[in-house]
């Protein structure tokens, strides 16, 4: 077997290797990577920076993949020399490795413009996982970050840093953003959107020097201005990494020159990815690299035949809420431009048509049609007949929508390169019915995820037993999906469970829909509804948790888990007086009195003199806290008081499912905030607000909602999420399912990054609900009915 050495463990190299492994003959493979990680998805680094994904989530091939295929993986070794005569490569560790066939997949380097002081501490590139980790480590609320470069990567870096709490300014050399992908008008629309997000942008300025004594303190600009900075990210473009190719004596221009078979000027040295130049073009996006990899794999394995003839350049900005797409040649030279713009909506579309064919496209603010345009560009389709429907698709009778009009050869998932035909084949031949099966089978939608809705539409249209979990109706009594039902209740101003059942349901209802409706009405009308206890589960009729023997458990509220000797004495006295069979410390830093008779509940509550802990309901449970700065020698935030205040703000309210929270005074996370529905994680300069965590039947690490400086900001972010969850989750949907269903970017966009009016409205409704909520245990003194807690004794005695 021939020895194949691959230099470069990135996306292009490993994708090519995957393809090579599908062919005969086999090679003995050695892979060198100068990063210390296994093969990962570089295009998702911005999602790691934005806290949407963890480093583990973006691994493409884990160590077991290399082992399975007998690949000798050498990470952390940089190849510094090639001897094309002796056929060996030399590593920076001194190792010399012989090869029969060499594959250069060296990618590109971040371009460092000539700026003085780039060697200062606090200057970063944004190219690798290590860069990303360093950036996360260095960013914190209130830190000033400067991003040099307003291209795709620079903007994604800017947004990521902002989510980490930094105050971000983008300094861009050109007069418009993303000028390689957008015309000046498109750049203007993008500028508006970035500014709406709170990212500052300075155009037409060169950075001349990084200032500071050893560590970054600011940057000097060409207009003599100076900006303060704690960290600087240089995202000024990339340069193909051709150093080795030059040493190997290959023909090199800007990149390593390759022909349509992906051959270089040498017979046994090949190259793929960002380091190559094909027909005068160096590609920096993933789809063309995968096309190249496929062709090269055939060539290298003696199956020469397929050719690579270039890829229509296409780019998509991965910032949720800032939809930008650009493809092809959008210059207006010798072309007919077709435009649409709407300033109020922030939508800009431009197509260029040449000889009856689409030449290029720019979309800002609405990229819904991007697949249609890509399809036209790729197939070089004659669009004369579509002229009336260029900017918006023709009204379609088919519910399949956009996906229905795509050809079978059209690409649905641009990252992995999965066509509509492949997906349809998987559905028919492999019995794929759900999104997760589709991902497993075809890997479509596993990379950036922007094609998820297309995949779903296709599944819905084609799969015989498509399971759409989202739109489940509540139950047979009331056949509506919950979002639809909420609209109905709101618009029809319905305020009682029975009324809803009579008008829209079967008039009867059941144990599934009645509690769901009770919740919805209470939430929608902020407590101003007709409360019907018959529609509530027993726990919510008597405000205690029913146990297997019909007795109840009583858990008083102990905010933040902080109690007092006096309170403890009263709890002990109650336990004695009512002969409570078990007194237990709960996992929520509270005390549970188990085995209390229903009839004793009002007296127990009165003797305790403490409010209800709502441990029996779908509502606000507790805020677990650590001692934070109060006593802990490691605490950096006052987590205890923050937790007590948080509990005060949320207590007494109903939620779609129970809500458990925690606040911790430092990242050691002693109160486990990262596996709670809402958690505040204290840091040196502020708080991370995390949401959607779980430590129950499944374990899920919470997603970062936002990083803020002050406790008040952290509480407000929590309030926004809390109310948003109340209003949009399905009944009995925990936050971890809710956040996963919507995606954290959508949640962020509609809560902490929503327009001010939206945020105010959320907070107003929360305040309103809170003002009407009361401590449920007060009903012990003024019961709803005389018989709420006590059994009825027959008024007539039974005697002979």
């Amino acid at each position: 077997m021939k020895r194949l050495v691959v230099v470069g463990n990135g996306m292009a190299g490993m994708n090519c290797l995957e393809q090579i492994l599908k062919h005969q003959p086999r090679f003995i493979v050695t892979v060198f990577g100068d990063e210390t990680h296994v093969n990962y998805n570089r295009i998702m680094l911005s999602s790691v920076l934005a806290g949407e994904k963890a480093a583990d989530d973006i691994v493409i091939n884990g160590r077991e993949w290399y082992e399975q295929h007998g690949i000798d993986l050498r990470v952390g070794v940089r190849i510094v020399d090639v001897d094309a005569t002796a056929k060996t490569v030399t590593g920076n560790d001194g190792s010399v490795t012989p090869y029969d066939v060499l594959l250069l997949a060296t990618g590109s380097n971040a371009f460092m413009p000539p700026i003085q002081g780039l060697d200062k501490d606090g200057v970063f590139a944004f190219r690798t996982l290590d860069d990303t980790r360093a950036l996360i480590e260095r960013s914190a609320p209130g830190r000033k970050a400067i991003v040099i470069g307003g291209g795709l990567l620079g903007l994604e870096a800017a947004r990521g840093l902002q989510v980490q709490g930094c105050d971000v300014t983008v300094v861009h050399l050109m007069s418009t953003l993303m000028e390689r992908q957008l015309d000046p008008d498109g750049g203007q629309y993008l500028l508006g959107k970035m500014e709406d997000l709170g990212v500052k942008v300075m155009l037409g300025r060169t950075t001349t020097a990084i200032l500071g004594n050893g560590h970054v303190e600011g940057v000097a600009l060409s207009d003599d201005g100076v900006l303060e900075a704690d960290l600087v990210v240089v995202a000024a473009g990339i340069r193909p990494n051709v150093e080795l190719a030059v040493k190997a004596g290959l023909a090199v221009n800007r990149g390593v020159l390759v022909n349509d078979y992906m051959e270089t000027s040498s017979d046994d040295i090949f190259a793929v990815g960002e380091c190559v130049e094909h027909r005068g073009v160096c590609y920096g996006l993933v789809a063309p690299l995968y096309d190249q990899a496929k062709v090269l794999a055939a060539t290298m394995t003696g199956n020469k035949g397929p050719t690579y003839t270039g890829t229509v350049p296409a780019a998509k900005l991965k910032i949720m809420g800032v939809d930008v797409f650009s493809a092809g040649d959008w210059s207006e030279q010798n072309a007919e431009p077709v435009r649409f713009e709407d300033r109020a909506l922030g939508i800009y579309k431009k197509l260029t048509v040449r000889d009856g064919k689409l030449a290029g496209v720019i979309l800002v603010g609405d990229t819904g049609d991007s697949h249609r345009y890509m399809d036209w560009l790729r197939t070089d389709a004659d669009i004369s007949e579509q002229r009336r429907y260029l900017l918006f698709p023709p009204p379609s009778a088919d519910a399949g929508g956009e996906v229905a009009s795509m050809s079978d050869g059209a690409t649905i998932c641009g990252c992995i390169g999965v066509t509509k035909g492949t997906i349809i084949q998987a559905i028919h031949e492999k019995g794929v019915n759900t999104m997760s099966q589709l991902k497993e089978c075809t890997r479509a939608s596993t990379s950036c995820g922007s094609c998820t809705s297309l995949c779903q539409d296709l599944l819905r249209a084609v799969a015989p037993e498509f399971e759409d979990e989202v739109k489940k109706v509540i139950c047979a009594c009331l056949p509506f999906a919950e979002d639809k039902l909420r609209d109905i209740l709101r618009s029809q101003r319905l305020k009682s469970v029975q009324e809803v059942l009579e008008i829209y349901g079967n008039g009867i209802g059941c144990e599934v829909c009645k509690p769901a409706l009770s919740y919805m009405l209470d939430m929608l009308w902020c407590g101003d509804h007709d409360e019907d206890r018959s529609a509530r589960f027993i726990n919510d009729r008597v405000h205690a948790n029913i146990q297997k023997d019909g007795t109840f458990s009583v858990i008083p509220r102990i905010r933040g888990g902080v109690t007092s000797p006096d309170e403890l004495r009263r709890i002990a006295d109650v336990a004695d007086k009512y002969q409570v069979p078990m007194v237990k410390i709960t996992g929520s830093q509270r005390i549970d009195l188990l085995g209390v008779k229903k009839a004793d509940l009002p007296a127990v509550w009165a003797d305790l003199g403490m409010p209800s802990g709502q441990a029996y309901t779908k509502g606000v449970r507790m805020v677990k806290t650590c001692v934070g700065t109060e006593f802990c020698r490691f605490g950096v935030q006052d987590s205890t008081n923050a937790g007590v205040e948080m509990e005060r703000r949320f207590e007494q309210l109903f939620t779609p499912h129970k809500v458990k929270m925690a606040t911790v005074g430092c990242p050691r996370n002693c109160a486990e905030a990262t596996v709670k529905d809402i958690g505040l994680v204290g840091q040196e300069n502020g708080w991370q607000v995390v949401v959607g965590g779980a430590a129950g039947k499944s374990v899920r690490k919470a997603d970062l909602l936002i990083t803020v400086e002050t406790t008040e900001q952290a509480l407000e972010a929590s309030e926004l999420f809390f109310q948003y969850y109340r209003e949009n989750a399905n009944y009995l949907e925990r936050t971890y399912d809710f956040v996963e269903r919507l995606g954290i970017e959508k949640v962020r966009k509609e809560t902490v990054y929503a327009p001010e009016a939206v945020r105010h409205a959320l907070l107003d409704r929360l305040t309103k609900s809170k003002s009407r909520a009361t401590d449920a245990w007060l009903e012990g003194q003024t019961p709803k009915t005389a018989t709420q807690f006590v059994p009825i004794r027959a008024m007539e005695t039974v005697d002979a």
Partner: protein
Amino acid sequence: MSEGRWIRVTVVENIPPREGRAVLVGGQELALFNLGDRFLATDPNCPHQGGPLCDGIVTGTSVVCPLHAWKVDLESGEVTRPTHGRGHCVGTYATKVEDGVVSVQLPAERAKKEAA
């Protein structure tokens, strides 16, 4: 049944519509439900694991036990859900409402036994 003895139990207002209550009739406990247009009475405990039926959610003429959601038909006393629970049943008692007071009819022998 006609042999049984009618016992006046409580005023109708004491049991809100679509709710149940535990009632003590002599030494015996029953579950008494207000279905809105009439009252129904059964034995108090679910045939499954003894859950208090009076604490269940009423759905039509059935109640759903609060412990494990077994569904019991209040007219026949039969378990209708889950399937493997079918065949189990609870005792039922005739009821009537007169002058705003609900009465339950205890079987003659039972009434006698209670008294003894």
